[in-house]
């Protein structure tokens, strides 16, 4: 587009910048001086440190207390415990979540020397009887959960909030029954929430070093942010929301760096490029490689064939050792006798001498040809001979391999007839073609074309060898282009309740896939059966990764089945519904996964207050009324606004998701909402109605008067910012909030820790919003 001509004037101007640089140099030296002196003056914030210590101790107590109860499999421990066992047994499995969180459990099991013999099959299975070191497993998420609370405290501290604000935020997480409940069990969310909090903390630290770009600490926190975010997304894909949150902040930051009238002086384009590149590497490239790394670990641990094989392509399965498929695959040659099996319903292609009835119940008419059906059991009627369209010479029949894309005929051995399909409606589907067989004479003569089928291997290359077991294929009729298909509705009595075989016009459908299970015509001692001990094949990592990634996304979207305790996103901030995790009838004990309603309602209502404050500020500003001073507004928008964005980004996308959702999906968003709560408690009880302009500010603080503009931009601790203000109101508010939160936590505690058992009255007293608790009668 139009290139800048000489007439263009640049805003800000170069000259000015130079001057500012000079000023800045001068100021820097001065600033160092000032900072040096403040360091001596400012207290080392002992109050924060003591609070942090107390909170950490409490959080370890709340997370670890009674962790061995119940000694039975609870809720989704079924899945994640099982996955850990698979890792320890090194058998391949498939799951929709990335491997990091699950690998941590495996690591824990490996530390305590567990061999992974127990597969966590049912909720309520005893750990004691099965000798599972479940406390070690549970200690891992509990540790993460316990560390989450001090992380929240540190976020508030590092962001420069006052002590009561930080205590409020941390307290809301500390005494939240949902956080406690979810982190004491073998589940992924503790890891997820902890690293999500760590990402926010690292980013806040990184941002605080913005005045020392490319310094050692700047790099350190940049990379730590990236790695933490990578851990979030390597645990569950909701980590993408964390990327979005931090990404928004980074983009705004970059936009400000680009500004030619930037306070610290305009950056040159190469410098800006460096900033951009550093963030691209730290926030995108490094996390992605780290994410890939876990997949590499995943693949190298799981080298044995296991329950996940079926989700993968045959090429992938051949990379796994003891894979049944790879072991028994034999090249198929013409004139071999084969049995064909349907991949989904596992029926064999079958035929017998009976004919289709002339007329079906609905009045349609058949060809009265020989029946071709699907039969689930082994039988000689399942044997078919695979023939070339034009017979080879008598002496030249053996040794011709069948290849992908070949046209073949299939002869039914017992009745000596040839498989065929034609434009006659099938018994159940008027739109699908009937399969039948015809005599060899007809098959060689006028019906020859109708007996021709094409072997289409799934993901096959042209001319690829057609193998038994591993060669998944579609049998496509050559003249009419329908694929052989079957389904689960059995035929009526005339078909002996066997499965219907018909020609499906929709060739693409994945249920058209068949495989050759056996080649009975090959004698047991034939050299074709002899296999040299096969080494698992190699497949490039990236190819494996992309295949798995695709399968994960596909199956994640397919998770739409309903669950009795699934909930809707709108229910979460109000805590309208929990999830029943575990019950025990004898002791009337139950674990009902539920947040602390008091804490949830406080946090959610303060989110609304924040939206209200911002809305009111925007409206009044638009009308020329400035109710907030610049610093307060900047804090409200940049810091609290960031927390609010974090909440929205971790919450709102769930409205667009079609899959089943549970309350625990709200945990990251809840953590963000406690940050907003803490910040707002301070804002509401300390916001000064007086409009502070620069002069007032400088009068207030002697030190600041001497500090030039840039120094004033430097980070300000809460104690400096709120100097001279009474914190009494804030402390009081925070105390009240904490008191009611602790009461709510205490009240719902038996449902979270699973003990003690409750009487009917006690259960009913806790059915606040019609929570569907057990043992209410």
């Amino acid at each position, binding site marked *: 587009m139009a290139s*800048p001509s000489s007439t263009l004037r*640049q805003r800000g*101007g170069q000259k000015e910048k130079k001057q500012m640089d000079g000023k800045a140099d001068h100021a820097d030296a001065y600033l160092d001086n000032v900072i040096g002196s403040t360091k001596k003056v400012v207290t080392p914030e002992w109050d924060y440190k003591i609070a942090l210590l107390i909170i950490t101790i409490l959080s370890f107590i709340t997370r670890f207390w009674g962790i061995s109860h119940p000694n039975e499999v609870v809720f989704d421990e079924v899945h994640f415990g099982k996955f850990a066992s698979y890792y320890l047994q090194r058998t391949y499995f498939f799951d929709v979540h990335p491997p990091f969180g699950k690998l941590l459990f495996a690591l824990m099991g490996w530390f305590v020397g567990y061999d992974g013999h127990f597969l966590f099959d049912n909720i309520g299975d005893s750990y004691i009887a099965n000798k599972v070191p479940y406390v070690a497993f549970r200690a891992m998420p509990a540790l993460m959960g316990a560390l989450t609370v001090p992380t929240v405290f540190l976020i508030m501290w590092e962001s420069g909030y006052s002590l009561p604000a930080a205590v409020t935020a941390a307290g809301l997480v500390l005494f939240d029954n949902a956080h406690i409940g979810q982190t004491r069990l073998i589940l992924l969310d503790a890891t997820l929430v902890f690293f999500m909090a760590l990402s926010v903390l690292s980013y806040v630290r990184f941002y605080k070093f913005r005045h020392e770009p490319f310094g050692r600490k700047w790099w350190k926190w940049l990379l730590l942010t990236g790695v933490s975010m990578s851990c979030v997304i390597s645990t569950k894909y909701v980590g993408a929301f964390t990327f979005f949150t931090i990404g928004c902040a980074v983009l705004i930051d970059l*936009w400000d760096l680009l*500004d030619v*009238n930037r306070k610290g002086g305009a950056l040159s*384009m190469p410098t800006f490029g460096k900033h951009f590149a550093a963030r691209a590497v730290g926030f995108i490239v490094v996390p992605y490689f780290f994410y890939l790394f876990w997949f590499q670990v995943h693949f190298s641990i799981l080298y044995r064939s296991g329950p996940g094989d079926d989700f993968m392509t045959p090429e992938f399965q051949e990379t796994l050792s003891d894979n049944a498929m790879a072991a028994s695959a034999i090249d198929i040659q013409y004139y071999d006798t084969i049995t064909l099996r349907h991949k989904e319903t596992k029926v064999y292609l079958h035929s017998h001498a009976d004919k289709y009835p002339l007329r079906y119940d609905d009045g349609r008419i058949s060809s009265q040809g020989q029946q071709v059906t699907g039969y689930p059991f082994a039988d000689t009627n399942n044997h078919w001979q695979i023939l070339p369209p034009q017979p080879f010479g008598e002496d030249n029949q053996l040794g011709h391999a069948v290849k992908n894309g070949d046209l073949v005929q299939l002869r039914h051995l017992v009745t000596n007839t040839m498989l065929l399909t034609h434009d006659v409606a099938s018994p159940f589907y008027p739109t699908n073609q009937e399969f039948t067989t015809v005599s060899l004479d007809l098959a060689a003569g006028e019906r020859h074309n109708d007996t021709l089928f094409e072997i289409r291997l799934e993901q096959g290359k042209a001319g690829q060898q057609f193998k038994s077991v591993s060669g998944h294929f579609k049998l496509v009729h050559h003249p009419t282009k329908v694929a052989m298909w079957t389904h689960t509705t059995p035929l009526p009595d005339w078909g002996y309740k066997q499965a219907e075989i018909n020609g499906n016009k929709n060739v693409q459908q994945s249920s058209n896939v068949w495989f050759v299970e056996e080649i009975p015509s090959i004698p047991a001692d034939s050299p074709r059966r002899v296999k040299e001990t096969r080494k698992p094949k190699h497949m490039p990592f990236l190819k494996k990764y992309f295949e798995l990634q695709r399968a994960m996304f596909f199956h994640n979207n397919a998770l739409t089945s309903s669950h009795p305790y699934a909930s809707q996103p709108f229910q979460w901030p109000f805590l309208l519904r929990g999830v029943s995790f575990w019950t025990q009838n004898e002791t009337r004990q139950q674990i009902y996964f539920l947040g602390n309603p008091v804490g949830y309602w406080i946090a959610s209502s303060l989110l609304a207050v924040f939206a209200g404050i911002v809305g009111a500020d925007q409206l009044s500003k638009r009308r020329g009324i400035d109710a907030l001073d610049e610093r307060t507004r900047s804090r409200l928008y940049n810091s609290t606004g960031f927390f609010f964005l974090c909440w929205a980004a971790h919450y709102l996308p769930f409205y667009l998701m079609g899959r089943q959702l549970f309350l625990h999906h709200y945990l990251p968003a809840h953590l963000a909402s406690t940050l907003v709560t803490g910040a707002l408690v301070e804002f509401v009880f300390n916001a000064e109605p007086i409009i502070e302009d620069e002069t007032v500010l400088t009068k207030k603080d002697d030190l600041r008067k001497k500090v030039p503009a840039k120094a004033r931009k430097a980070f300000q601790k809460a104690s400096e910012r709120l100097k001279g203000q009474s914190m009494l109101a804030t402390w009081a508010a925070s105390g009240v909030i904490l008191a009611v939160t602790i009461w709510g936590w205490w009240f719902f505690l038996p449902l979270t820790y699973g003990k003690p058992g409750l009487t009917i009255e006690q259960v009913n007293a806790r059915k606040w919003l019609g929570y569907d608790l057990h043992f209410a009668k």
Partner: protein
Amino acid sequence: MAATHDAFTTGKDDGDLRRRNIQTHEKANGGMVYKIEAEDTKKLQKKSNLVAFLDEWEFVIAPLIFTALAFFTRMWRIGLSPIVTWDEAHFGKFGSHYLKREFYFDVHPPLGKMLVGLSGYIAGYNGSFEFKSGERYPEELNYTSMRVFNAFFGAVCIPLAYFTARELNFKRPTVWLVTLMVLCENSYATISRFILLDSMLLCFTFTTTLCWARFHRLQKESFSPEWFFWLFLTGLSIGCVCSVKWVGLFCTALVGLYTVEDLWNKFGDLKMPKVELASHVAARVVGLIVVPMLVYMFSFYLHFLILENSGPGDAQMSSLFQANLRGTEVGKNSPLEVAYGSKATLKNMGYGGGLLHSHVQTYPEGSNQQQVTCYHHKDANNDWFFYPNRDHMDFNPETADVKLVANNDVIRLIHAQTGRNLHSHTVPAPVTKADNEVSCYGNTTIGDDKDHWTIEVVNDAVSSDYSKIRTLTTAFRLRHTVLGCYLRAGNVNLPQWGFKQIETTCVKENKPKDVYTHWNVEAHWNDKLPPGEAKNYKSPFLRDFIHLNVAMMTSNNALVPDPDKQDDLASQYWQWPILNVGLRMCSWDDNTVKYFLLGNPIVYWGSTASLGAIALLILWYLIRWQRGYEELSQHDIDFIHYSAIYPVVGWFLHYLPFVAMARVTYVHHYYPALYFAILSAGFVMDWTTQKLGRRVRWSVYILLYAAVIGLFVLFKDIVFGMQGSHQQWRYLKWFDSWRIVDQ
């Protein structure tokens, strides 16, 4: 910096100067918007009088030529195919219902289909044809004129596009390009040639865009008569587009966004008197909310007015509505108020609710008592007697005096065919285990107080007196007197043992708003009472309107694709902007005239690319601005703002919902979005060629004109109909996914 920002967005400073020039031009040309560069005019005037004349009257001549061409492309050989093509099967049938005046139900609002009906009326069609897909039209049905009526809407789009492009401040070559892109868009031309709603939808989308653009241009003349005229015209267009299909709401959203931005700017203008600000808001509320609502409701009013006979859609409506249809049994000679001893049928008031039913078959599990269900078919098993409770065992329906059933009465309901009482107990219901089972038990003498039900009147459609139960109009709930649960029939079907009828249960939660627990008396027989008068059964329009709209929404959401059955015709959102897929509109054998719904490649690809180009362009200027280059004048910024950003936003609004939507989607869902993409393409061409010399610019444009026209001509047969073997058009199959020929 924030201060400068504000100044830019209010658009107040140097834009004024430039604007004034435009206004003088406008006056010189008889009030029409007219803007060309002054230097061009001078040069042209020197050349010759003819050219000057053409130049001066371009705004009349060009649209006339384009419109003539439009009528040609939309109507030539329009009657060639004498068979019911594609969705003509639906919309033709709906049109027939208007001619037969039979009530039907469909997911789309009525305006478009009423227009189809009108076209049939003009063609002298009596509504007797069934419009079966692929069937040949009968001799007496003049389908050609019905199609011409539809094609008219399609043809009108071309002049609309022309004037819209002018209102968006595009230069003359761009205006022509945009018009040509709409004119020579094969998919627009094809879809306009059949009895479908899409040509109307497109037409009203185009009028809305034009009115919005014109209204924006009049921003400086607020409250002038012309300003009001275009404001109300915008409202009218919005009303029409929403009354054709609900996708019109996306168009409404575009105008809505514009209005919000406009008002936000005015809100920030502290110099504007508060009264003026308030009148701005009021004008827009009236023009852009009230007027469209009235249009939308008026279309439904006409719908109800025309469809006065009972028809296939009755069951979707309330009993009260049905009673007002001619030829219906509902409400015939029924006494108005229900008394003890009355025989009646009870209808569930939920959407698609049936009649309370019982039959001699018993539940195979639970209590093993007689089944109670909800059933749509009308038979004698739906009849129930209202009986007093067991405290009045001496009640004899023959002899007792007439006593009306009142609100909060405790009653029994006795099944007329089997003589058993409607009963409930703490046995779990067969499917919805959380609820109590409802059965039929005992007889008039045998039984217990679990046969007792309390009537709770919820509301009454025509009367504010809730003390009595009136046939059809009173909605009431039946509370089980002992257990406190409510009689409910949801949408759950029983297994085969219950003949797939709707499960009827007693639900423990008291939710007064749950319409599935609301019942009304549909048929009512009582010899002792006089038959009610028809005027008592007037159904209020608003209630029917809301009921029908909710029913439409519910069934629209139910149009989800069946994952097991892949539809050959359906396509996915990502395929549309890249023209990955076309659509066969009819059978593909050699004897049918075949139509293939596929766009003009250069229009599709060019318009899609221009969306990306605009994004890059804006990013470029933003970064340049942040780096301190002020290379755009206020005029340029306004141009980008209203002629690039708004069309792109319009495209997103019309496109993104289909990405999120779970329902089956087809290529024609993209057509409204395509128009906004075409406008974006116009902007990109206009912007990139502004620095070029006149000669170069015109040659670029002439090349583009030639490409657009050339491709249209190349693909003309898929628009005008392909006769004979499809193999003749093998050369048009550029990609495997364009299924113009097999294989």
